[in-house]
């Protein structure tokens, strides 16, 4: 009981099969209330299947799922009123204006945010009276985000929310998400931008081939091993690379042996992206070995 009260989302051994194809093969994770959790993984890994099961759009083939204390396969209207959903594709190009659409959707929720505040938050003040069909792709995406938050959701699903955003719009979006976090909104985010996950998420899960290959705080994904800095340099024999937890000593050593500045010297701390690519890459390799 305590866990279901404190956890916004609980997923245990979640399975989804389409005929013979296994899309999800025993995924488990928990998202605490107020937490921002990022689900990372390559296309077709099962991110959207997971999020759509939790949104109530798809039925699961096995395992357990609880979203705000409710089985998402049976969530009713009062349950939906507590969620905000930003789908992966915006699709529709309505012939209503941004303000009309938001005002209309605000009416669906018991305690919506102010329409003007939301329009400002997504940076569409100048487009408020423009029909949605006349907006650019990035602007329509902002309308999607606006519709996702208009109902003051307890839990917000963001499925690749910043696709089509220019860098400035992404920064602005990050600010918005930080505000939502500070108000206590729980957020489940999928994204292809690892910097976005690093900026926003408290924890992340990496999903590949329908399995969760790692889960943990953003700073610990992939384990300490994967974060050991790399020293690179060149000499007459070619390019060199050495992983070391003491890069300073390695460099000092290099300088003294070379008797001067080593060519092309760099010390790299693997970014989340490097760690992620390592994880996903090793998973793919394992699969090949199993197949072979």
């Amino acid at each position: 009981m305590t866990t279901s009260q404190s956890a916004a989302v609980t997923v245990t051994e979640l399975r989804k099969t389409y005929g013979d194809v296994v899309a999800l093969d025993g995924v488990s994770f928990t998202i605490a209330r107020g937490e921002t959790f990022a689900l990372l993984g390559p296309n077709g890994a099962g991110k959207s299947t997971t999020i759509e099961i939790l949104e109530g759009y798809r039925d699961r083939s096995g395992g357990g799922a609880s979203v705000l204390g409710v089985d998402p396969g049976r969530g009713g209207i009062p349950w939906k009123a507590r969620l905000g959903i930003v789908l992966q594709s915006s699709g529709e190009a309505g012939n209503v204006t941004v303000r009309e659409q938001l005002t209309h959707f605000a009416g669906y929720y018991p305690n919506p945010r102010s329409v003007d505040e939301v329009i400002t938050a997504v940076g569409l003040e100048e487009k408020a009276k423009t029909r949605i069909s006349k907006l650019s792709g990035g602007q329509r995406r902002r309308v999607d985000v606006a519709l996702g938050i208009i109902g003051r959701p307890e839990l917000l699903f963001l499925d690749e929310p910043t696709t089509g955003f220019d860098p400035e719009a992404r920064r602005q979006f990050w600010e918005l998400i930080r505000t939502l976090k500070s108000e206590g909104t729980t957020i489940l985010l999928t994204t292809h931008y690892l910097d976005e996950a690093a900026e926003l998420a408290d924890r992340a899960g990496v999903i590949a081939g329908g399995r969760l290959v790692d889960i943990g705080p953003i700073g610990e994904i992939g384990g300490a091993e994967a974060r050991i800095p790399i020293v690179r340099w060149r000499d007459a024999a070619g390019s060199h690379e050495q992983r070391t937890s003491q890069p300073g000593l390695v460099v000092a050593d290099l300088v003294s042996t070379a008797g001067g500045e080593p060519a092309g010297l760099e010390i790299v701390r693997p970014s989340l992206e490097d760690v992620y690519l390592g994880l996903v890459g090793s998973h793919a390799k394992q699969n090949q070995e199993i197949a072979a």
Partner: protein
Amino acid sequence: MTATTATLSTSPLPAGRTLRLGLSRIGYEVRGYFRAGDSVFFTFLFPLVMLTIFSVAFSNQSFGRDAAGNGISAATFYLPAMLAAGVLLSGIQNLGVDIAGEKGDGTLKRLGGSPLPVFSYFMGKIGQVIVTGILQAALLIVVAAVVFQVQLPTDPSKWMTFAWVFLLGVVTCSILGIAVSALPRTGKSATAVIIPITLVLQFISGVYLSFTQLPEWLQNVASVFPLKWLAQGMRSVFLPESFATLERGASWNLGGVAIATAIWFVVGIIVCRVTFRWIRKDS
């Protein structure tokens, strides 16, 4: 703290919410309808265009005489047919194509993830058809009377018949529109799937061609579908009483109109209940 939030947020939503949202949807749908140029032309104005064409093309022909011996003009003859066609187009064709499109473009998926009750959504669609259907019928009747000098009935009981045939027809065709929206596999194929259905119905149900001149087997086929009955009901309002003899069974058979349409109403409700989904869950 957490417990308080949980109790608050799972408290039941206010009563009457479904109706309030249904009314809000009607406003939203009507606005969207008139902003979409193609639906305004092909559904809303189409019967008026056809009435004008027939009235002008056959202006020298007589379509029979009333009891007093006055000739019946083409406009008089085609007005009830176009009113019935308008009901069919506003309901089945407009909603069928519209909802199939909404399925294809993600509108329904978005609505399915929102706390909008399905009933409110249906209310919005049916309300939109009632509002646009009334405007369409009013426009047809006014143009027929003013431009083509059609003599409108003066007997209030005729207008009562018009009211119930029209409303029953509009609501039934709206529900059938929601039902047929499940047929097209994609939003893009919607017009290709649905327009032939309504077109064939119009030809076999006495809208463009005089019903009693069709072969009997075709009349029997058409009698299964609601349009034949709606057109017959409309003729009973706008054509002279003596024209009843030209109908099958030599009477307007308003009881038959009510029963046949009501059966389709019920069938439509059942089909909607069984087939309507915000999204196909595992497509």
